[in-house]
């Protein structure tokens, strides 16, 4: 959770995934998109201004196995880039967005030489024209696991494709948060085991357990 500087009044903290971490320097970075007031204020802060963080929180992706497929939609790239950096094995990232502008990071910027990035944009402005779900059918057969983060509609579709192909899948979910540590029960998601807390029981859940309501 990222606490908002108090000069802006009372704002709830905002949850972000860890994009990269340098354990030696004790630094973490986040990759974020401006969506509303909170992210606009964060984006407008001067360089070097202090920001209070609480974390890491909750349960992330399980360890990467060989032949894993990573799937990111837009800024959902953040936790997958972090996951990809955790191993030197070869792996493939399918990275989609509406337009090239929403593909916030280029493969080169990620600096992960063993990562093959397949880009897709709905308008064809970069990579293949289409959505990640147009690309997955070709890649799922050879994969042993799938890890995904992105908009809910994408995750629901990816879940369906992975289940159908018999590939175990983990997805990272989003919901509005208040405490971030599992106390307030505000970030519930409906699962086969009842409501679970995205901030503490997740944000990553086995795809098969998540019940999407649309």
């Amino acid at each position, binding site marked *: 959770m990222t*606490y908002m500087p108090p000069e802006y*009044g*009372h*704002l*709830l*903290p905002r949850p972000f995934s860890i994009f990269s971490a340098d354990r030696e320097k004790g630094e973490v970075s986040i990759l974020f998109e401006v969506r509303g007031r909170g992210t606009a204020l964060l984006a407008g802060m001067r360089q070097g201004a202090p920001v209070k963080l*609480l974390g890491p929180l909750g349960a992330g992706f399980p360890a990467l196995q060989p032949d894993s497929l990573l799937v990111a939609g837009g800024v959902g790239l953040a936790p997958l880039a972090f996951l990809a950096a955790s191993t030197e094995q070869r792996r493939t990232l399918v990275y989609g967005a509406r337009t090239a502008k929403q593909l916030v990071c280029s493969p080169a910027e990620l600096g992960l030489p063993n990562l093959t990035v397949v880009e897709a944009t709905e308008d064809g402005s970069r990579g293949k024209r289409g959505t990640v779900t147009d690309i997955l059918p070709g890649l799922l057969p050879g994969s042993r696991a799938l890890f995904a983060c992105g908009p809910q509609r994408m995750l629901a579709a990816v879940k369906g494709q992975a289940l159908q192909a018999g590939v175990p899948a983990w997805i990272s979910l989003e*919901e*509005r*948060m*208040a*405490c971030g*540590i*599992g*106390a*307030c*029960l*505000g*970030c*519930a*998601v*409906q699962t086969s085991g*009842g*409501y679970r807390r995205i901030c*503490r029981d997740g944000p990553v859940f086995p795809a098969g357990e998540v019940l999407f*309501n649309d």
Partner: protein
Amino acid sequence: MIKPDLRVNLCGIGLESPVLAASGPFGYGHEYLERVDCSALGAIVVKGISAQPWAGNPPPRLAETASGMLNSIGLQNPGLERFLAEDLPLLKGAAPRIIVNIVGCDIDEYADVAAGLDGAEGVDGLEINISCPNLKAGGVAFGTDPAVTYRVVSAVRRQTALPLLVKLSPNVTDIKVIARAAEEAGADGISLINTLSGMLIDTETGRPLLGNTFGGLSGPAVLPAALRMAWQAAEAVDIPLLAMGGITSAEDALQFIMAGARAVAVGTGLFYDPELPGKIVRGLAGYMEEHNINTLGQIEGIARRGGYANG
């Protein structure tokens, strides 16, 4: 120089600090106790417990509003049995005092939970949340009718000798008659306020933003309304008040104490800053030193008595 004494006695519960964690935001306590220093808290009021487990409302359950938030958790809770078996043991010892908030969908359920908690080791007091929808009366909240309030509180009172606070809903025309009904039915103290009913609409979908349409408004936005009701309740009853609603600073806490509160609780403020209780306690101590005040009793309700003589 004065060494301020921050202890207060809330309906027979001796508290080392007048700052409590409000029911709900703090969950069952252990999540916060694990992560942040909670030693400044006088007590934890745990999240509402019903006889049977309650599933809670569909998401989204939270929304941010101007200087506040809406929640529609729907009183999700594990039920009395699992609370006693799993949550209470984690709290005992780790927490300062423990006050258990109880909810029900009819009067019997309230009474059953109170009976089940009465002998439980580690429970220092009860707080009845009468803002729950009364399922037998078409979902109208118990706490909006003085006669129903009287019946719920009496039923619980018969089941327990524990200090008993009654937590009032602010969604009423006259908080004074509800506070009086609770006092007459045997309450040892009044807690207020619970959340103000509110909603938001998502203009992109054209639908209510919360899964449950309505939610409860809390946070600094509600402070002036909460303070007014604390003032009115203090006028109406003789039992002590535990006051809350938008507190995020020692100055906020002082306003409630000066209106007549014995102790205060923080809810939404914990989300903005989990270290808030310690900051408030240090702020209160600083204020007392500056103003030569030994105990909070000296300023409890002072605004109702004309304020400082030459302030």
